């Protein structure tokens, strides 16, 4: 959560503007507060300052979560495509965040209402593409990127069965003795699973939860609390 912390009042204001609930009136009022009493935003000590901070945190949290949890699909034309359902206007920020990591690639983030392209490559300028169908959008972007970038990603890295391999690997890492669903949901809240299409995690979580637990007896209770005594 470190990226949520210690931001300046201006950064909180900018993030709050991307919140889906922020109206024009809200933005004007928030700008006034930023000019006159910026500390009210950073500390959240007034009710309006608190509201700005709350909205900004919701936006920052979404960018933070989705940049990590969004799964990408690689294409040979140095293109990585991911799909998500952000609640706020964060699609471009997520694409930019991923472009910083994959700085040699072009990133396409597709949301239900729009799509966002980002890259850190100097040899490509992002065009405006208006296309409603997902398939044809991907096709247009692939053709466009393929024309400009000569470099191709080796076939071996595309891992056709990558998602299946990951699913199998993911399950091997689980330690049943440490089962801690509360902690799991603190890191991946249920709404984030839906936003980022984390089907592998959701499926395995449900599978683990549905496993029958041992019968609770007095013996098992004392055994569980053995060390505390």
């Amino acid at each position: 959560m470190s990226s949520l912390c210690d931001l300046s009042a201006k950064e909180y204001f900018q993030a709050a503007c991307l919140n889906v609930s922020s109206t024009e009136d809200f933005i004007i009022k928030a700008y006034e507060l930023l000019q006159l009493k910026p500390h009210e935003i950073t500390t959240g000590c007034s009710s309006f300052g608190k509201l700005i901070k709350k909205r900004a945190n919701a936006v920052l949290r979404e960018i933070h979560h989705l940049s990590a949890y969004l799964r990408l699909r690689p294409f040979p034309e140095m293109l990585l495509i991911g799909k998500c359902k952000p609640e706020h206007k964060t699609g471009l920020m997520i694409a930019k965040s991923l472009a910083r990591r994959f700085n040699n690639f072009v990133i396409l983030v597709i949301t239900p209402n729009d799509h966002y392209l980002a890259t850190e490559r100097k040899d490509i300028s992002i065009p405006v593409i208006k296309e409603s169908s997902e398939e044809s959008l991907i096709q247009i972007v692939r053709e466009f990127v393929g024309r400009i970038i000569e470099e191709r990603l080796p076939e071996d890295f595309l891992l056709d069965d990558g998602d299946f391999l990951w699913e199998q690997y993911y399950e091997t890492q689980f330690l049943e003795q440490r089962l801690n669903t509360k902690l799991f949901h603190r890191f991946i809240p249920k709404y984030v699973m839906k936003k980022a299409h984390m089907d592998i995690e959701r499926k395995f979580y449900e599978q683990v939860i549905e496993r029958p637990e041992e019968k609770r007896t007095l013996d098992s209770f004392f055994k569980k609390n053995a060390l505390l005594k």
Partner: protein
Amino acid sequence: MLEKLRILGEAAKYDLCASTASPRAHTPNSIGKAVSTGVCHSFLPDGRCISLLKVLITNQCIHDCAYCVNSTSNVKRKKRSSTSFDPEELAKLTIGFYLRNYIEGLFISSGVGRSAECQADIMYETLELLRLKYRFDGYIHAKVLPGISIDHLRRIAELADRVSINVELPNKSRFAETCSTKDYQNDIMRVTKWLPQLQSQGIVPAGYTTQYVIGAAGETDKEILESIFNFYEKDWNFKRQYYSTCLPLEDKPRSFPRSFFRREHRLYQIDWLRRIYKFSAKELMTIVNDKGFIPLREDPKITLARRNEDFFPLDINNSTYSELMRVPGIGHLSANRIIKLQNQGVKISETKQLKSIGVVLKRALPFLTIGKNTQLTLDNFSKAMDK
């Protein structure tokens, strides 16, 4: 590939690591970047993160460590099948997963197949493929094997961001209780001593770490803490240390007492108090009881705060960073924010401001003065009565 991934992933799940931003210079036109994201890429229902692809090169091992799932005795008893990754396979798998945004990098470890040197060669070959042939620039953590030579260690450390070697147990006698085929001095400490030397030459950019297995022998917390504090001294300069409760290999998973993990949790808390909160080793050692164990019921920071009652309550608006860090419920981030507000001339006068800053009120309030008020507790009530 699938079977290998299952077996070698399963065999590596007890190793601990965390990805971090590496100060290593970024190579232009490479795949990926070891930048900090601040959140791991996936989590398991046990609450542990998966930020790196954690696998062994092989699960064959010549050692007989009692706690290890890959040791000669456990493999025979459980009839586990042995397998190995080919460097090329592992390199492609890592990049494949990385591009799908499943991982931030690779954690590579290995059983000691024929010999430690031979395994180190294979590990180096894998890293060489990743870094030089495929220009992979993500994070790599290499777990080096006990008993390797300095040349092998250097070659691996030059390509990895972080290296680690498991000391497993706090001293020679405890180590001997769990393993008869490895020597604590020659195999572990000799290799460990080269790490500060390599770092001073600018190798191992993200530092080096180690791991303890808790409860594998009859070791006390006092013995572990002595070893931990020693490794954080300037001569060693370990970046961090990990603790892992020894899980019985035969036990039914869900019948394992959860309270056993509390010991591990308390060790982590004390580790943080030393490393981040800068409490002195001497002061932290006072927490250990006569039998050499950390009391499990109370948070160590609260124990220390209650023992130093003359130091508290602190005036929140006039305290320094190091003073604030001693208050239970105030961590590094909230202490920094309070100092930032002090510098801006903003006075904290209400508890709701503290809550907004991120302070855990129920822990912090008995030790703080806000305005002229301090929360009344049984402890400071009796103190006030005495006065």
